[in-house]
C-alpha cells in the first residue's frame, strides 16, 4: 500500500467512526431528542461532501438530498433513508474489522 492509499484508509476509518456518532445523533433526533435545525443541516452537508470521497456514494447522495430539502423545509423520508444507509455503512465496516 503506498502512502496515498494508507492515508486514505486512515481517513476512511475516521469517517466510519464519525458516521457511527452521526447515526446515534440521528437516531436520537428521530426518537424525541431533536437536533437543532442548523446542526442537522451541517451534519447532512458534511456527509454530502465527504461520504462519496470514501466510497459511500449512497450516504453522500441521500445526505445531499436531505441538505437540499432542509434548505426548503425538511424531509422526514430522506432522513429515514439516510439513517438506514448510515446503519449499513457502520455495520458493514464493523463486521469488516
Amino acid at each position, binding site marked *: 500500500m503506498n502512502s496515498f492509499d494508507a492515508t486514505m484508509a486512515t481517513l476512511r476509518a475516521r469517517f466510519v467512526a464519525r458516521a457511527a456518532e452521526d447515526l446515534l445523533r440521528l437516531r436520537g433526533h428521530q426518537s424525541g431528542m431533536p437536533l437543532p435545525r442548523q446542526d442537522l443541516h451541517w451534519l447532512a452537508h458534511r456527509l454530502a461532501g465527504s461520504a462519496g*470521497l470514501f466510497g459511500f456514494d449512497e450516504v453522500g447522495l441521500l445526505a445531499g438530498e436531505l441538505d437540499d430539502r432542509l434548505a426548503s423545509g425538511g424531509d422526514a423520508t430522506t432522513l429515514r433513508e439516510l439513517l438506514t444507509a448510515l446503519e449499513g455503512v457502520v455495520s458493514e465496516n464493523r463486521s469488516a474489522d
Partner: protein
Amino acid sequence: MSALRVLYVDDEPDIREVALLSMQLDPDVECRAVECAAKAIEIVAAADWLPDLILLDVMMPIMDGPTALEKLRDLPGSAATPVVFMTARAQSFEKERLLKLGAVAVISKPFDPMSLAKQLRAIYAAATA
C-alpha cells in the same frame, strides 16, 4: 515552469486532508490548506506567499465562501486571482449563482482525488489564457 500555487479553504478536516493529499500527488501544484477564510485572508494580506488560484468551500461557519471571495477581492494580493468554489450543493442554479459572484469554476463534492490537481491546472490555464 514554477508550480501552481493553490490556496485551499475548507472547514471540514477530512475533505481538506484528501484534497491536500491529492494535490501533493502533482509536482506542478503547491497547495496550502487552511480551515477558515480568515486564515486565507491573513496569508494573502501577509503577501509572502501569494496564490495563483484560490479554492473556496462554499458553506463554512463564521465566513462562507461567497463572503470570503468579496473580502479577498479587496486585497491587492488576490484582487484578480482566479477563484474556484467547491460545493456539495452542485445543482445548476447554484453553480450559476456562484459563477455570477465572480468564480471561474465550480467543483462538485465529492471530487475525484486522482484528478483534482489536473482539473485545477486546467481551470487555471483557461482562466489565464
